[in-house]
């Protein structure tokens, strides 16, 4: 069986709950979702709403009736409560209202999207090149973060209901969800007075900056010259073996603080590393890292991720079918590994009129 089998969830989706509803569906809940009037593109629908029952809101009273009998309502409407759900949810229901901002603060009621919420998170300011505009992370991370928090709040409500016998209401701020993910910037300012800046792919610590991304023979790897003597010795040892260590052989890594080393010296050392990485493949570098503890990772392209033997063995990607069009897509399925999980439906359902929805029976 699945962990949440039989749990009736009504989701009113508009970005901020999409991932949360998807997580509950993956865990076995019976999620009925109402999509926004202006629907997201097909790939987003496939990614976030497969495994749910898509409900067309033919009758607002029918939506309200579903809300009244749901175990959980995930209400992610960004532009107000178009169905009047707040008035009809029962005392037994766990009603998670997700809004861009708090309900009573100075930003309450302001319009927002994933991009504008991510800009407010403090993460965009420090992402990208210093001479170019700040960058967002790929996809829609502010929505993803609020969605995961929505699933968390729903499951917390479920735990509380087991103990108290009562449902409850919760308010969740997508802005706060995004800010919570930024564990560095506000903290650094509070304790050091320093405001973080964009450094491209430089990792700046102390007086110097070290590279994080390196071209190699057939792609890119990520590795940094940090203050970890055993790691540095492991790297230099392979370079020595290949006759490529140069002056790196002479350095006493136990008594060298990279963070306090002049930038021009670091550049000289990094040039040796860069030449070595550029003349070897990702596979070679990854194998050395695994064997001797370099802390290097190969930077995978999306196709590499799909082709990963490791992720295949873990069964991460699953085929999903769009019932309406027959189109398929390969997207991540299981959230984690557990011996007690069954695979849920791998389809994007045809819309079912709210007035005709017969789920959650029995």
């Amino acid at each position, binding site marked *: 069986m699945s962990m949440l089998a039989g749990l009736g969830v009504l989701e009113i989706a508009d970005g901020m709950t999409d*991932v949360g509803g998807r997580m509950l569906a993956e865990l076995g809940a019976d999620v009925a979702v109402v999509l926004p009037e202006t629907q997201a593109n097909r790939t987003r629908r496939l990614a976030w709403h497969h495994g749910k029952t898509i409900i067309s809101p033919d009758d607002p009273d029918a939506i309200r009736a579903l809300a009244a009998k749901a175990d959980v309502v995930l209400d992610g409407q960004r532009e107000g409560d178009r169905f009047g759900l707040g008035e009809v949810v029962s005392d037994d229901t766990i009603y998670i209202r997700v809004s861009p901002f708090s309900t009573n603060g100075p930003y309450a009621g302001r319009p927002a999207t994933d991009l504008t919420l991510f800009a407010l998170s403090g993460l965009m300011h420090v992402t990208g090149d210093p001479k170019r505009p700040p960058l967002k992370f790929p996809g829609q991370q502010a929505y993803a973060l609020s969605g995961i928090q929505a699933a968390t709040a729903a499951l917390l409500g479920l735990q509380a209901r087991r103990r108290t016998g009562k449902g409850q209401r919760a308010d969740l701020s997508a802005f706060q969800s995004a800010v919570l993910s930024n564990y560095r910037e*506000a*903290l650094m300012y509070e*304790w050091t007075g320093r405001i973080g800046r964009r450094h491209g792919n430089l990792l700046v610590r102390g007086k110097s900056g070290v590279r994080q*991304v390196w071209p190699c023979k057939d792609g890119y790897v990520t590795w940094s010259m940090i203050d970890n003597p055993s790691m540095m010795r492991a790297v230099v040892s392979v370079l020595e073996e290949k006759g490529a260590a140069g002056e790196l052989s002479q350095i006493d890594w136990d008594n060298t603080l990279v963070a306090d080393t002049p930038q021009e010296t670091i550049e000289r050392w990094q040039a040796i590393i860069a030449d070595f990485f550029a003349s070897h493949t990702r596979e070679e570098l990854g194998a050395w890292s695994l064997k001797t503890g370099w*802390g290097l990772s190969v930077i995978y392209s999306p196709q590499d*991720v799909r082709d990963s033997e490791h992720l295949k063995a873990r069964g991460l990607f699953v085929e999903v079918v769009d019932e309406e069009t027959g189109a398929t897509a390969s997207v991540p399925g299981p*959230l984690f590994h557990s011996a007690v999980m069954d695979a849920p439906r791998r389809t994007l359902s045809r819309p079912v009129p709210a007035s005709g929805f017969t789920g959650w029976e029995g």
Partner: protein
Amino acid sequence: MGALDGLKIADFSWVGAGPRATKDLADNGATVIKIESRKRLDLGRMSPPFAGNPKDVDGSAFFAQTNTSKQSVTINLSDPRGIEIAKKLVAWADVVVENFGAGFMERIGLGHQALKEIKPNIILASVSVAGRTGPMAGFRGYGNSAAAHSGHAWLTGEAGSPPQMPPLAYGDVVAPMFLTVAILAALEHRARTGEGQHIDVSQIEPMVHVIADLYAQDEVEKTGNDDGDFIVHGVFPALGEDQWIAIAVENDVQAQALKRELGIANLDREAISTATSAHDKFSLFDRLAAAGVPAGPVLDGKNVLENPELAAAGHFVKLDHPVMGASNMPAPPYVLHGTPGKVERAPCLGEHNREVLIDMLGLDANHIETLISEGSLA
């Protein structure tokens, strides 16, 4: 009252990926006993920024914000007598959480099978870079490994640009959120069936999940800040050095409002940039919001800490700490009105040894004092 009052967690996790999940549980009322050691310090206790002396194990603000509402006991897990005490905590707990390297829990006699023998319905929650199965099981990563292995780094930035690493260990943020969900789902399963289980969360997989919409595309492309579903979707300069505002226009009504507010005829990037660069990012945010246009100033760390919306929402809770003094700690981004929970300060190292081991578990006080003095509980 918290949603998880009465829930008992034996938390062996350290640094970020485990502790952020157990913070979620602790802030919502669970009793979380953090098992740590002076012999093998949680690296989080040595992570900046520090309130004062970097060598003070109780002075890391990084550690404090990651471990709110928990209690700390020190147990030397390389000492068999320490392991025996750890087993007492397992017997007490509903959930055991760990993020050690592969095989460590088994080597010290606390693998899943051993835990089940102590408590048959225990939930063991593990989080690691690549998970506990598959060819990469046991892969030891640092910081941003999950960003590299998931496609995140490759997909960040403008088309044709090299990969861009995130500015923080984002995998250490997303994976613990999945771990929290997994633990709560496993608790529901146990409530229904009486069964515990072993949950295996990989840091790479959640990082793939949160970009599932990109993986659903036939050809995955990097698009910088662009999004083809929007009329306008970008970051534009504002008044001042390195000041920016994000604007996203979803429909014609918003498009007309943006033109009106900026006094421009066309929504091309240059026209918008020229107009926005004359305005303070916050006042422009106010104006565009009032006109119904989604916008957001690009906040820096100072802006976040001083943000009036976050202050009104109680996002940062000011807590007194014996070493750090009054410090801002992040609260959950939700309020459960029936069971709101409470954020409390992070523990000092071993602060609750006697309270937990003697008062709570009822172990012999003389025995515990002996183990403390002989380094088994250190």
